[in-house]
């Protein structure tokens, strides 16, 4: 289906009043804006939110289930023998500066991604061996091992304008002959082919986008001409800003009380499910949580309903993978809130008699919504079954710092993790594979060889059905035998907005699993 | 002579380095204070009286010249380098009784300091108390005052406490720097009388610095008049008041305001002063008084006059005599 060059707009016949008015502005807030506009650097929800609007990838997620559909590539082929993917590229694409998009741009972007080795690079470093420009419209990726989700993963591979980048590269830099690889330039400029381009960028404060006049696609008729994203850490201020009309939309996970008070005041809100979960990650290498019975006890001590209620009633999790994600399996060992069972598990553990001398430390990220409450609920329950518990609220930097080493990692941390591409493998790999160890997504420190092998095997399975079965097997294994984490509920964003400002697919219930695509501004229809 | 002398000052000189140049506060001064006498030092404000007093008690040392104590001890050194005995024997009472008593201490605590410091041996609590009480009783204040704070007692009484503090050290010589000028006449009278009594009883010598000529007349045995760092006249009190020689002295005496015609008659002929008081920073050449002197001659502007003995024990420093 190479013809899908514009996403289906949900706009019912665009109102003529807005079309005429020249400068429509969509103003949003989020808790953190990206550090740079460089798609090789960022890897979070908020980064992607910017990237999808200013850059484009070879494929993009399908609105229905997130599976890849053609975008800058019209079609592709896989050669099993050489383990090579060959992509045919569109010929009508131009970058924001007017330069035509060619295979060289793809190669440049991939080489750069791998050289910088930051952000989403981990999706490719272990697999992509080289990129070959076959002709202006054809590009091939030579993989060094089979990689099932490769096409899906390319959703995160944003193509840069190679000519513009080389023109703006500084000779002095960390990347040898490539100088700084244009990293300085991308600090506050964009070089993509997306519907918007960056016009202003202030680190940790705001960025502004304007419609890309040269865009090859079809701009939504009443799509905002300008977009302003503000970073706002103070929940009270964001609430006030919406109320005073200074912003139109509060992005991200708003606290349930904020949502409640705003919707009571006539603002609109929606629950947008993501391909991710909220996890309690249990350190399997430190006492007393190195005992599986203790971990099971923790899983029993978790009041799943109450926790989901704190977040305004999110869908429960049944295992490490949210049900909407491709590769999900329902066939897992599920835990329920049952303190008696928890006690029983403790009794079976090696620490049954020495619980008091093995305190449990629970960490969560400062200022991260209501995770503190989740931790409190868990801590309270754990205390009631006999654990000594302490809670710590840690600034983001220290949180990350602590988790670079198993000895400084706390017993339990709470964190949301979402898939990088819409497939179970993404979550399984980031959560449990040894090679992605040492970051805040992996407080478990599993280092389980058997599991590693299973994940690797699944990922290198190209056949979808086989891969899906292998994913199911892994989920069974993890929940049944290892129990490294507690799966609380599906990560659900709660944007709140002023319905008088714009029409939005989310408003109509058209929610996409890949969160950032809900904020594809070209889909918005500004109202008077 | 030196047998009898308490303090002998020779060619005493003190300079201060200031931002605006060197200030000669005391410029070669000679005088002797005999044992058991009250020696008055009067003169213009800023003429260097306090500076002399300070050098005697050792606030700082002189720039040049010598001061001999009791004929043999050289005390032209600051107090830091003086022996404990010297510190004890020479005491000081300041002009401002308000600031010379620590407001946070009771009179007892204040008096304990010198008693303890200058005791010849380690004192028991009782002995200490005894001595402190003695010191207070000596100046005629009731024992009840021991437990008062300075702010609870009047100005004259404060000054008496200062005197008691000086006496507690059992000194031989006390420098009194304008001890009564902050006080009312009636209190002044009380304090002065007390001082005089104590001097006689304890056989003390005083250097009595003041502005008040009438006071000097009544309590000093001898006195010197200072003008701009120099002594211009120096005599027995009676002689001085009946037979002033120096024009400045005459001017001073003539301008004393008095209470009765009887006193008026004792004053010398009035001399109209001319000119302005020079600053010690820019001391005039020759006789320091010449810019204001109605009798000045050309020699006064060039040559510094020498001290001359006009009659036995009466010295003056003027070209005109």
């Amino acid at each position, binding site marked *: 289906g190479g013809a899908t060059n514009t996403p289906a707009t949900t706009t019912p016949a665009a109102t003529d009043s807005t079309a005429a008015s020249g400068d429509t502005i969509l103003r949003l807030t989020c808790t953190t804006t990206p550090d740079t506009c460089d798609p090789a650097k960022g890897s979070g929800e908020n980064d992607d939110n910017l990237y999808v609007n200013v850059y484009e990838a070879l494929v993009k997620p399908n609105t229905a289930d997130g599976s890849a559909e053609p975008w800058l590539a019209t079609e592709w082929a896989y050669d099993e023998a050489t383990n090579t993917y060959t992509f045919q590229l569109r010929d009508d694409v131009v970058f924001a500066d007017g330069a035509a998009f060619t295979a060289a741009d793809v190669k440049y972007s991939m080489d750069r991604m791998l050289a910088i080795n930051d952000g989403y690079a981990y999706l490719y470093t272990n697999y992509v061996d080289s990129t070959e420009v076959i002709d202006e419209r054809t590009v091939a990726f030579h993989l060094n091992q089979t990689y099932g989700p490769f096409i899906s993963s390319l959703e995160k591979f944003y193509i840069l304008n190679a000519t513009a980048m080389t023109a703006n590269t500084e000779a002095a830099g960390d990347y040898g002959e490539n100088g700084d690889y244009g990293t300085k330039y991308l600090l506050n400029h964009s070089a993509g082919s997306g519907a918007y381009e960056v016009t202003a960028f202030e680190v940790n404060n705001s960025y502004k986008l304007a419609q890309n006049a040269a865009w090859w696609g079809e701009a939504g008729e009443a799509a905002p001409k300008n977009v302003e994203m503000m970073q706002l850490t103070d929940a009270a201020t964001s609430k006030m800003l919406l109320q005073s009309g200074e912003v139109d939309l509060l992005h991200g996970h708003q606290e349930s009380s904020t949502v409640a008070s705003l919707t009571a005041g006539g603002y609109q809100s929606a629950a947008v499910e993501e391909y991710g979960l909220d996890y309690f990650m249990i350190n399997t290498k430190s006492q007393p949580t190195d005992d599986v019975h203790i971990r099971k006890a923790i899983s029993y001590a978790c009041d799943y309903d109450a926790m989901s209620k704190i977040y305004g009633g999110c869908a429960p999790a049944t295992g490490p993978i949210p049900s909407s994600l491709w590769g999900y399996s329902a066939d897992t060992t599920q835990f329920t809130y049952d303190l008696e069972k928890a006690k029983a598990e403790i009794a079976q553990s090696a620490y049954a008699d020495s619980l008091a001398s093995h305190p449990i430390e629970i960490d969560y990220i400062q200022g991260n919504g209501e995770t503190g409450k989740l931790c409190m609920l868990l801590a309270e329950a754990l205390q009631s079954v006999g654990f000594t518990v302490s809670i710590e609220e840690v600034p983001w930097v220290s949180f990350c710092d602590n988790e670079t080493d198993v000895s400084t990692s706390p017993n339990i941390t709470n964190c949301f993790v979402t898939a990088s591409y819409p497939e179970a493998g993404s979550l399984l790999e980031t959560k449990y594979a040894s090679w992605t160890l040492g970051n805040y997504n992996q407080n478990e420190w599993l280092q389980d060889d058997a599991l590693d092998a299973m994940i690797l095997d699944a990922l290198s399975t190209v056949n979808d059905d086989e891969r899906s079965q292998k994913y199911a097997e892994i989920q069974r294994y993890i929940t049944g035998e290892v129990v490294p984490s507690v799966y609380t509920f599906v990560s659900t964003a709660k944007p709140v907005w002023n319905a008088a400002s714009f029409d939005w697919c989310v408003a109509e219930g058209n929610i996409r699993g890949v969160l950032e695509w809900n904020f594809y501004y070209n889909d918005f229809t500004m109202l008077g | 002579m030196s047998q009898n002398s308490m303090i002998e000052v020779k060619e005493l000189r003190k300079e201060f380095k200031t931002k605006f140049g060197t200030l000669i506060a005391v410029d070669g001064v000679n005088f002797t204070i005999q044992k058991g006498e009250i020696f008055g030092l009067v003169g*213009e*404000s800023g003429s260097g009286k306090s500076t002399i007093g300070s050098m005697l008690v050792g606030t700082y040392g002189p720039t040049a010249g010598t001061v001999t104590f009791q004929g043999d001890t050289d005390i032209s050194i600051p107090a830091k380098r003086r022996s404990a005995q010297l510190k004890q024997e020479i005491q000081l009472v300041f002009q401002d009784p308000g600031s010379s008593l620590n407001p946070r201490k009771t009179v007892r605590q204040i008096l304990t300091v010198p008693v303890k410091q200058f005791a010849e041996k380690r004192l028991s609590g009782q002995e200490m108390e005894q001595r402190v009480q003695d010191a207070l009783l000596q100046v005629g204040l009731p024992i009840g005052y021991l437990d008062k704070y300075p702010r609870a007692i009047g100005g004259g009484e404060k000054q008496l406490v200062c005197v008691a503090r000086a006496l507690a050290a059992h000194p031989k010589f006390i420098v009194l720097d304008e001890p009564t000028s902050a006080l*009312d006449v009636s209190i002044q009278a*009380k304090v002065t009388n007390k001082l005089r009594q104590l001097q006689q009883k304890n056989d003390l010598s005083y250097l009595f610095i003041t502005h008040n000529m*009438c006071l000097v007349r009544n309590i000093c045995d001898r006195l010197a008049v200072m003008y701009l760092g120099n002594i211009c006249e120096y005599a027995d009190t009676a002689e001085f008041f009946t037979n002033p020689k120096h024009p400045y002295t005459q001017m001073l005496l003539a301008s*004393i*305001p008095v209470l*009765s015609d009887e*006193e008026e008659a004792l004053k010398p002929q009035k001399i109209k002063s001319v000119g302005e008081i020079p600053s010690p920073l820019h001391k005039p050449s020759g006789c320091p008084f010449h810019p204001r002197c109605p009798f000045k001659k050309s020699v006064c502007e060039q040559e510094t006059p020498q001290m001359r003995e006009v009659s036995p024990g009466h010295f003056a420093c003027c070209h005109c005599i």
Partner: protein
Amino acid sequence: MAEILKIENLSVQYQVYEGVLEVIPGLSLHVREGERVGLIGETGCGKTTVLKAAAAVLHCPPAKMQVDTIEVCGMATNSRAGVKNVRKNVSMIFQDPSTALNPTLKISTQMMDILKSQFPKLSRASYTEKMMDALRSVSMPAPERVLDSYPIQLSGGMRQRVCISMALMKDTRLIIADEPTTALDVTIEEQILELLDHLVQEKKKSLIIVSHALGAIRKITDYVYVMYAGNIVEYGTTREVFQSPLHPYTDGLLAATPKLTGDGIADGIAGDIPRYINPPKGCRFADRCPRASAQCREQAPTLQPIGSGERLVACFAAQKEAKAL
């Protein structure tokens, strides 16, 4: 002769932290045209307070004033017009020249502001000329330099002369001088007193002066009020009062003053001024008085004329004696 200043039944209280100071319980005095009047008394007996009340500047918050009459040049001062009249007819020399001049303003600025209020529209040059004249009139050497100085650049004597010249810049009928010569050398004191005396006599002004130097008072005043703890205790011509004091307090003051005759000093008056919070209800001097009787402690004596009537005294003993005579 007309009364230039007339104060009747003045009472002043200061509200302080510890309570109310009943400083002046009810005081009357007057200055007639052309008279030079002295006011003497110990420290803290309220002399400055009386003078400030006369000059209508006793309005700072701690002071609470009640009075039957304060008249300056026949006009009560308790109205706006009255205050204006005071400003026009009274100049005052303050006790302490080092606090009476604004430390942050040049002498010329301070003098200029006074001149401007009197002669609103003059040229700069004529203002300067007037200022120079004023300074010269107090025989100030180098007036240009003085004008261009700040108060701290001047010596105490110069400051006092500046104060006097500023006070005299106004052509007023009454001069109030509060210890104009304390902290000055005798020679300078004499100069300043003579200057003051000269101005008063020459220009036919009236003068009320406070001084601790009784000799100075004797020298330049015609009449003298003796004040004790907020009350006038004796009044008369200066000569009479100094020659034959009637009130034991006056007597004590004079006796305590050292004389040039050199026959020793009397022992001063015993004791202190009573505290102004709850002062004694009888004669305030009773506690220190060698002649105090039971009556003195019960009842406050009032000023009664003795002899001709130009002489007043507030002492039961003295009054009785006079009657007996």
